């Protein structure tokens, strides 16, 4: 089981337990680093955050406001305890996300604002924007003022970092688990009773089977789909390029985002099988009835880790930065992880989750992106201009 510890005023980390340090702190292995801090047994975070945040805000404002005033203000804030940290401005966070997270973030935003104000902070307004991950990254590059990005894969955030400089290059090391608070995988959604008898990836290249998957150029989920199919071919001694090429010849329509593809399959009735995010497939069952569709779990799939990052260059105030950092860090809290599990994401901390939400996930072999050499290699080679996808699609 994972342990969650507090490593900063608003930052939580998770990892496997290594040892107890004796002073109430424990050391954990968070995947990329060993971290130590106080375990978060009780999901309620410490009350100090609000006061410290307030003090920091007041202190950083000091040179601008004149010494005495700031000192009085800081003193007043400390004396008053957890009072609104930044009442001077209403803080707004714009979360630019990918397609299938709509329902999760709608609930998480409510959870976060309740927690954040309970800490004695001024209420924040959280706005959402959803679309294909590639298209959303493009919009941020073109000037969409995202405070945080929560996209489908790290290559999209890398693009923003590279092209705008608004995110530091090492963004993935700023949060635990390579900045991916939850994971998912790719499964098949078929019509009730599985009339085409689809059981694994090789059934998708059969003559006459129509496969629905979005466009890898604009959709992050589509890129995971592509790589999962590639991994299957690779594991089974098939020529991956030929196999994936045959699969895409069975795709009648490429939507721009995962949700568009789901709608094409479920509401418009096009296609025999939908390559879907696991969470998206579960959601379709929940929304449209278990008697309309079946989930088919292939023998091998990919571990999809959708990462999150602050867009540092778009931060306009310290209060906004504090809120946005807390917004991302709180994704790792046990209650947020439980919420992610309820929304069918493979979150890591199961301590507060309902057992049913955890038991639901099927066991299957998951290939990681590291086997492909990481997104920095995969993105240009497979999905860049003239890359393998372009070559396959031209054939």
């Amino acid at each position: 089981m994972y342990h969650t510890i507090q490593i900063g005023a608003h930052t939580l980390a998770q990892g496997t337990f290594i040892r107890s340090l004796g002073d109430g702190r424990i050391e954990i292995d968070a995947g990329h680093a060993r971290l130590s801090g106080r375990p978060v047994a009780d999901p309620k975070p410490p009350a100090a955050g609000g006061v410290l945040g307030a003090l920091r805000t007041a202190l950083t404002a000091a040179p601008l406001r004149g010494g005495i005033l700031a000192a009085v203000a800081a003193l007043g804030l400390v004396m008053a305890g957890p009072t609104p940290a930044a009442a001077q401005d209403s803080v707004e966070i714009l979360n630019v996300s990918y397609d299938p997270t709509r329902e999760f973030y709608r609930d998480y935003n409510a959870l976060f604002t309740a927690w954040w104000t309970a800490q004695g902070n001024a209420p924040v307004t959280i706005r959402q924007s959803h679309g294909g991950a590639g298209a959303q990254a493009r919009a941020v590059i073109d000037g969409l003022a995202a405070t945080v990005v929560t996209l489908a894969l790290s290559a999209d955030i890398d693009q923003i970092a590279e092209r705008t400089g608004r995110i530091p290059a090492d963004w993935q090391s700023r949060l635990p688990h390579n900045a991916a608070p939850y994971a998912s995988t790719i499964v098949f959604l078929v019509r009730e009773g599985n009339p085409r008898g689809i059981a694994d990836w090789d059934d998708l290249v059969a003559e006459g089977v129509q496969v629905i998957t979005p466009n890898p150029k604009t959709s992050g989920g589509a890129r995971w789909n592509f790589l999962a199919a590639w991994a299957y071919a690779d594991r089974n001694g098939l020529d991956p390029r030929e196999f994936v090429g045959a699969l895409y010849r069975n795709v009648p329509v490429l939507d721009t985002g995962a949700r568009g593809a789901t709608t094409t399959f479920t509401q418009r009735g096009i296609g025999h099988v939908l390559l879907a995010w696991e969470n998206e497939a579960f959601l379709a069952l929940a929304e449209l009835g278990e008697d309309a569709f079946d989930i088919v779990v292939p023998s091998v799939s990919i571990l999809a880790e959708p990462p999150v990052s602050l867009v540092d260059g778009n931060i306009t105030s310290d209060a906004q930065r504090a809120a946005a950092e807390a917004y991302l860090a709180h994704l790792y809290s046990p209650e947020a992880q439980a919420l992610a599990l309820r929304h069918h994401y493979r979150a890591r901390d199961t301590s507060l989750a309902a057992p049913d939400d955890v038991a639901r996930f099927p066991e299957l072999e998951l290939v990681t992106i590291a086997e492909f050499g990481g997104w920095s290699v995969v993105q240009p080679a497979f999905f860049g201009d003239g890359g393998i996808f372009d070559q396959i699609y031209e054939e």
Partner: protein
Amino acid sequence: MSDIAPTRPVPVTTEPPLVRALLIGLAVAFVALFLFAPLVTVFAEALAEGGRGVIAALSLPDARAAIAMTLTIAAIAVPLNAVFGIAAAWAIAKFDFRGKAVLITLIDLPFSVSPVVAGLTLVLLFGANSALGAWLMANDIRIVFALPGIVLATLFVTFPFVARELIPVMIEQGRAEEEAALTLGAPGWRIFLTVTLPNTRWALLYGVLLSNARAMGEFGAVAVVSGKIRGETATMPTMVEMFYNEYLSVAAFSLAAVLALLALLTLLLKSLLEWRHADLLAATRRH
């Protein structure tokens, strides 16, 4: 204009009744299938959970924000385009100048350019990757992914409507009345207000109604520049798509029904105008 009114009653047709019935039946079936059925579906889907479902859907904060956004955009874009349309039509119909043909072609440009392309050009022009966009962002002025960008996109796609309605009417009426006013010593502004504008008011109103309908219904151009921020830059058509994609079918179709009602209201107003002022319209132009 090609109003060739028959001078005396002639037999309307010599076709046998069966052919007539078939043709009329075909036309009615076509209209019913492709125009009426979708409209009925919109309202039926909206009312799937009864009137209370519609009210609940329309009181969602996102839905209300989208309605407010669309009305705001129409309230800004339509008057601006009315002013532009009148100015352009006045210039084109009443004066001769070099480049007139080019101006007429330019006014028609939005009809031939795809709305998505129009939206993308705005993003290229005012986005963070252009010199202008970078300067605007540095000065904290937001054009794309904010209200100004959506208004610009709407202005672009609704550009031709008012001018296109006014130009033929103004040309048809000629310059004689204005010239008469001029010889009587009226200044330009007065000529415009007392002669030109009253002569063309119905065409103007018609153009404004069309322009308004398009401004409220535009999807493509607006979707590109809106950034899809819920409750902030989402308009009614983009919000309809979002609701639909979130399995909120009743909310999607309730909002779509409001849009359809607005469109029907526009049509009703137009028909009312035509009916009440049939003689006046006939004197100027028939639609």
